């Protein structure tokens, strides 16, 4: 029997999907930890990005933080956090460590894109809004953020795909997420199990990417939609 059909059998076996460490539980945990991190990162990233673009300070920080953050290996961060006594004492220490690491991974692209998007709003538009008597809060909520939205969503998309894929590392610190079978397979030299787990993560990442692609399309103003594809800044 060849390798791929063994993987297929592994993935379609009902027994592998049920139970406390089955694929279904893993999938839920993976989505849960990713969602918590991304929602928190989106709130912080958008708020901070908008604030920085208004104060006209910290621009260097905002734009360069994404590139600098790429250099921090999530793998070391998650392990380092997980073995700290304060985290070890928690019941769900591994989950917390993974969520914090994923948060750290997700903030920079959202922050950079929000900053760039809000900065990119035409000054004439801003003057017009001010001329209509809008307060700063109204300007941000009704003018700047809506115009920056496509770029913000693109940032969230980049972050979400990275997070949902990287949350796999949580299994290394005891979280039963989709990394569980990958690491179990590596431990026991079971290629089929590892491959099956990896295929699921890849599939989930692609689904998340597609969901955000559609979301990005939906929040893009119609005239921009007509004039070209949505560019996702790398």
């Amino acid at each position: 029997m060849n390798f791929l059909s063994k993987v297929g059998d592994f993935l379609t076996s009902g027994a592998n999907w049920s139970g406390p460490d089955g694929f279904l539980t893993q999938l839920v945990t993976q989505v849960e930890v990713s969602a918590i991190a991304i929602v928190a990162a989106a709130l912080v990233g958008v708020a901070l990005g908008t604030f920085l673009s208004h104060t006209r300070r910290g621009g260097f920080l905002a734009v360069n933080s994404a590139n600098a953050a790429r250099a921090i290996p999530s793998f070391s961060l998650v392990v380092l956090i997980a073995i700290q006594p304060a985290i070890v004492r928690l019941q769900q220490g591994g989950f917390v460590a993974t969520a914090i690491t994923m948060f750290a991974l997700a903030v920079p692209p959202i922050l950079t894109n929000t900053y760039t998007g809000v900065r990119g709003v035409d000054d004439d538009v801003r003057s017009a809004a001010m001329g209509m008597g809008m307060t700063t809060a109204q300007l941000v909520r009704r003018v700047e953020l809506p115009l920056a939205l496509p770029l913000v969503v693109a940032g969230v998309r980049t972050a979400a795909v990275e997070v949902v894929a990287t949350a796999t590392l949580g299994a290394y610190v005891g979280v039963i997420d989709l990394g569980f079978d990958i690491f179990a397979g590596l431990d026991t030299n079971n290629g089929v199990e590892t491959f099956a787990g990896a295929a699921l993560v890849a599939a989930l990442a692609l689904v998340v990417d597609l969901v955000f692609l559609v979301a990005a399309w939906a929040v893009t103003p119609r005239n921009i939609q007509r004039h070209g594809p949505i560019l996702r800044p790398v």
Partner: protein
Amino acid sequence: MGPPREAQPGSVARVEPLAASNPLVDWSWVSSNQGMILSLLWEHVQLTTIAVLFGLLISLPLGVVAWRLRLVRPLVVGVTEILYVVPSIAVLSLAAPLTGFFSITTAEVALVSYTLLVLVRNVVAGLISVPADALEVARGMGYTAVQKMVKVQLPLALPSILAGLRVATVTTIGLVNVTAFIGQGGLGRLIIDGSNENFNTPIVVGLALSVALAAVADALIVGLGKVSLRWQPGRTAGAK
């Protein structure tokens, strides 16, 4: 190459979180393990360099083809995008059964596949940005398509390509750590050791050196850009 390591199945153990009280950095450990740390750092540099060079070797022709043949472009970008979304640990695990569980090839396949999206995209973007005037002049001078590409288009696309190279290099340096799971990994080895022994120091050292290496590599490419773009005033490898 690096020191002997236990590239055995089973050496990859999950953390059993035990209460531990240890300082972030135990300097005596660092000084007594200097040799090992340096050789792991060197291994990290080698793994990164090989991956980025191969990535560039594949991306340049692929980018040119994708730029030239508009119909193929979405396909090329789409495939590299899929490679990019597949998580690093998954790429390793997907490649492992095919290219050997603890081989350097497996590590490089994963690392190279990650560089492709950024590099190909930036090669295409760079070629698109070449002004029509420049192409017209090249045509007027009787350049063949190949001459035009090598002497005009690629040099003018260089800022974009270098910007991609920066991102690809920095990303790869972070990812090399993950290849420690299959017995490669340079500094990633320190992270696994630290987590197995519940010992902060190797993890902090691995993390700090990894970040420092990325900063140095990034600065080197920026410097390379400044030198190679001197003929093009006001342009450097842009931050992207």
